């Protein structure tokens, strides 16, 4: 039992870091789905873009790490506004199949573009000196960067929750999620709201991709390989909710780390089985509302 405790702590810690990254990436997808009913399978593209922006900014232009993080957020958010206005907005009323095909098409394009610019190799992440090394807490050592991920993501999450629960913009978003037609009829400009929310969600995905570049490798096949993870977080957590995906992301982060640690011979197999189980038990996700 003595040797079990440190490994449990370690799994919980690394799992929490992975879960936080997954949440920051996926929360935008949950909101897009809840708000616009848009199945954006290409959400991972935004995360990948964030990761590339961070690694390029640091290694080629010597931008300091905090600024590179901010660049990843802003760059992806601005880019997504163009995509949303030009392409996505034309498909809000299209069928599920068309949305799925369109976003798969975007993934193919993004994979090709990433491969063309960066090649197939994984992008190395150069961390600043103050984020490397170990951080000791209660007599144990933790990698400083993972501690930073957890703390920083928690701050982002708190800010996001405050924004949605306490601000006027958040009230408008919640109103539009509940009933879009009604929200529009009382004078909420839902079109602009969609664009802003989409940009925020995509920006967060970019930030998450950049933040987690060291955990989830940045390479051209990123949007394909991690799509299942993002979708699992959203569908298990429940669409349109903020809290559901948070719990789901933490569970999946910890479960995935635990599986890789104790049952490496099974790979991600238990996660998928558990997902199937949860979705059959509660098709709307753990915290989803019945429609």
């Amino acid at each position, binding site marked *: 039992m003595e040797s079990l405790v440190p490994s449990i702590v370690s799994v919980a810690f690394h799992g929490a870091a992975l879960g936080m990254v997954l949440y920051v990436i996926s929360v935008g997808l949950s909101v897009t789905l809840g708000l616009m009913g848009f199945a954006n399978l290409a959400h991972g593209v935004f995360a990948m873009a964030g990761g590339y922006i961070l690694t390029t900014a640091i290694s080629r232009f010597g931008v300091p790490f905090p600024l590179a993080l901010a660049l990843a957020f802003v760059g992806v958010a601005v880019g997504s506004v163009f995509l949303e206005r030009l392409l996505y907005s034309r498909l809000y009323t299209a069928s599920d*199949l*068309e949305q*799925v*095909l*369109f976003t798969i098409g975007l*993934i193919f394009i993004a994979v090709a573009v990433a491969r*063309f610019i960066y090649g197939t190799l994984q992008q190395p992440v150069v961390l600043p000196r103050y984020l490397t090394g170990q951080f000791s807490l209660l007599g144990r050592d933790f990698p400083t960067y993972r501690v930073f991920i957890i703390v920083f993501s928690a701050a982002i999450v708190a800010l996001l929750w405050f924004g949605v629960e306490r601000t006027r913009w958040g009230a408008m978003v919640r109103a539009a999620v509940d009933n879009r037609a009604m929200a529009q009829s009382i004078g909420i400009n839902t079109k602009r709201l969609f664009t802003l929310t989409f940009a925020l969600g995509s920006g967060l995905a970019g930030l998450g991709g950049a933040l987690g570049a060291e955990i989830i490798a940045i390479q051209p096949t990123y949007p394909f390989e991690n799509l299942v993870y993002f979708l699992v977080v959203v569908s298990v957590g429940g669409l349109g909710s903020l809290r559901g995906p948070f719990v789901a992301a933490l569970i999946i982060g910890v479960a995935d780390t635990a599986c890789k640690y104790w049952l490496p011979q099974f790979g*991600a197999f238990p996660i998928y089985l558990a997902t199937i189980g949860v*979705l059959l038990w509660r098709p709307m996700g753990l915290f989803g509302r019945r429609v």
Partner: protein
Amino acid sequence: MRHSGGYSADPRIRWPEWLPWLVALAGFFLLPDYLSLGARILIYVLYALSLDLILGYAGIITLGHSAYFGLGAYVAGILAAKAGVSDPLVQLAAAAAAGALLGIITGAIILRTKGLTLLMLTLAITSVLLEIANKADNLTGGADGLSGVVVAPVLGMFKFDIFGKTAFLYCLAVLFIGWWAVRRIIYSPFGASLTGTRENSLRMHAIGAPVYWRMVLVYTVSATIAGIAGGLNTQTNQFVGLNVLSFESAGELLVMLILGGVGRIYGAFVGPVFYLIAQDYLAKQFPEYWYLGIGTMLVLVVMFARGGILGIVDAVLARIAKRS
């Protein structure tokens, strides 16, 4: 002239419907150097037909159809390479049975859900199979793939030759049977009830149709056909790789079907022909641009030409008919 079937449509085979078979036979005699590509096209036509049945006709959106294709491929491969069963028809029957079994089990489970949940479940099932195939490497060869597939002569008479002549005709024969079966289904009352469910599931319930069981049935039929296509793929390549189960492969299949035209039998014929021939030419010369090309094509088709190639043909024909 939309060959989209339906209960009220005339079920007789019209003359243009023989064209694909004439083209295939002409290709066999005129282009002997391209028979392996031809066999690949035939396999993907069968695979696309199976997807069209559930996606185009029944309206079940799936991202995980490669599960059944991959299972069929691995069952045929494992029988041939590990269990010493070399008769191709036995391998194919086993692939079909495996596809059907997985189809009915997973179909009965996942078809209770819809929308994103359904999409997610299809993806998760394929991921589970991919993980199994990857990790059970003493059976499947894991990431190295399964080689050493032995295929005996078809019916004890027709040996698989290195030029791919037997393989081509064998695939053509299987595809013909598959096409005939799918066509029968589409023109039957059962087929009409599938289209009805796609258009308005609530009304189908209201008129007393057992919607759920019909969906499970068509899903199982589709999985069976996909399993057969997977088995054919193993037999003609004499190799099984992990990619048969990947999300990319399911995505490519979707692209082929959409390109041809979804919800119509011959969309499943036209799409793979265009896609695979283009891939054969372009992917070798410009591998970097290939995925860019598919992605752009997919986006353009969704934006501007939702009926695919055959949809464009229809529109052009309609305009000509109007003018004359």
